[in-house]
């Protein structure tokens, strides 16, 4: 996999500028994303998350500021946008709704084919991607519409993985799945990062899922409200609550217990919290 770095430099985007429908998409975003790292983007519907994702993939071009892939401006005249599309893979919400081919394998080949790979290379890439997402070979020639919901979702993700991106961006990849389906997707993302050194950028509404990321980015009304390690960001309980956002369960518990007079350090997940509590208990 290629190691890449995507930088958003002071990027702004406005929808329908100059009309009565003018709305802010993103304002002055300074962000940087790298392979091998994981990022969680949180914020309400309408906070600018989907604008941000589309800017990262070149589907929108910024009104102000630059998007740089390994130092190159992706909206410069000579730049081939397909280079960005293949480096930064974007998986939309409910990606299974974009499936269209007669067979699973053909659908996954669509991306690499568009990038100009030979049919043999496409097939190789597609097989590798399907293997990664855990779709077995006997399903390759099946009609994707006959698969289960969770399988369809994974085939759609494979469709983007087959383009061999260095960073994978996903908009709520677990939305609407049952707990098992959700776990499968989350563990897939973990594998991609650990074994394939892929950068993972995930929009999530679930703070417990977001807390696993190296960096958490909180958006509000198009601006970056908070940014930092999960520990740093989720410490700002009041600030997040003001934005109508939550913190992970263990941190909520920690706060509640402190307010009941129990002296606890900042606990981030159930394991930390139970250890701290048991320490107090045994004292």
């Amino acid at each position, binding site marked *: 996999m290629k190691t890449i770095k995507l930088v958003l430099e002071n990027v702004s985007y406005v929808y329908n500028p100059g009309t009565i429908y003018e709305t802010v998409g993103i304002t002055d975003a300074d962000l940087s994303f790298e392979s091998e790292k994981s990022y969680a983007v949180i914020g*309400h*519907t309408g906070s600018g998350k989907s604008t941000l994702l589309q800017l990262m993939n070149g589907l929108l071009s910024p009104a102000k500021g630059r998007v740089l892939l390994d130092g190159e401006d992706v909206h410069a005249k000579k730049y081939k946008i397909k280079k960005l599309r293949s480096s930064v893979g974007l998986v939309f919400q409910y990606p299974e709704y974009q499936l269209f081919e007669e067979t699973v394998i053909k659908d996954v080949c669509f991306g690499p084919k568009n990038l100009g790979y030979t049919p043999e290379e496409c097939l190789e890439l597609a097989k590798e991607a399907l293997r990664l997402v855990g779709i077995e070979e006997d399903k390759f020639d099946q009609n994707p519409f006959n698969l*289960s*919901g*969770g399988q369809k979702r994974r085939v759609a993700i494979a469709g983007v993985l087959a383009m061999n991106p260095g960073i994978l961006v996903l908009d709520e990849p677990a*939305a*609407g*799945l*049952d*707990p*098992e*389906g959700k776990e499968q997707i989350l563990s897939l993302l973990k594998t991609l990062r650990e074994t394939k050194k892929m950068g993972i950028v995930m929009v999530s*509404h679930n703070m*417990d899922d977001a807390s696993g990321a190296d960096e958490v980015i909180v958006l509000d009304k198009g601006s970056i409200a908070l940014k930092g390690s999960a520990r740093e960001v989720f410490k700002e309980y009041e600030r997040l609550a003001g934005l*109508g956002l*939550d913190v992970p*369960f*263990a941190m*909520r*518990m920690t706060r*509640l*217990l402190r307010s*009941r*007079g*129990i002296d606890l350090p900042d606990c981030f997940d*159930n*394991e930390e*919290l*139970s*250890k701290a*509590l*048991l320490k*107090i*208990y*045994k004292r």
Partner: protein
Amino acid sequence: MDLIKAEDISYSFKEYDEEGNVTGARTAVDHLSITVPAGTFLAVLGRNGSGKSTFAKHLNALLIPQEGTVYVDGIDTSKAKDMLLIRRNVGMVFQNPDNQIVSTVIEEDVAFGPENLGVPHGELEDRVYSSLEKVGMSEYASNSPTKLSGGQKQRIAIAGVLAMKPKAVVFDEATAMLDPKGRREVMAALKKLHEEGITIIHITHHMEEASEAERVIIINDGKVVMDGTPQEVFGNHAEAEKYGLRAPNAVLLRDMLKDGGMRLGEHIALDEKELAMQIASHLRGGEDD
């Protein structure tokens, strides 16, 4: 009184090959029996494909069981002449907010059900506006539904069901496509209906939502495999996990503490407030609450 009574019902879907020949059948509901007393808040859990939705569609005669009988308020759902009565009594809110709003104007959408039932004019208006009021959407009455958020659209759908004055409302994964804010909005509306005495059947993947119910059932392979209070069902989460479920975080933390030797009371706290209270009183005073 039992509002809903399913007696040994089964339903299977035919499977077809590419040419459209029947190749087999997939059983979705398999000899399932359950009774739901009037006024209950029941949560239905189970993995995708477990048959929950197929079961739900039997509750208002959208599907008629191939074997067994479903009674709604004492009426057999297979009797076609009573179908409208059954559907009026058991309303349904579906998963996709967009695919259940039929009109380009919100108030007219809410009126759709009672219009179909021939509710006379003065009462019709009362029902529409009081239903919108109940879900907090009055100010949008004459707007188009297009610009609404998912949570708002679902509240419109709930108002549309309420305007039929139902005895029960089935929420068929009605929160699955919503963000946390939308989910909270729908749950608030749902609880309000329950307080008014309407029977609630809530199908969901969110354990936190299910823990607010009075009774939880788990469906697996078309059968009811667990049935009890949320404490009973989630307290036995090793069993629940076999059916693809995960216990709420509070239950998991409680187990970790118990495994570590902390002796918490018998009561199983389902949310953080309850659990924090339990732990705090235990750590400070040593007394089990």
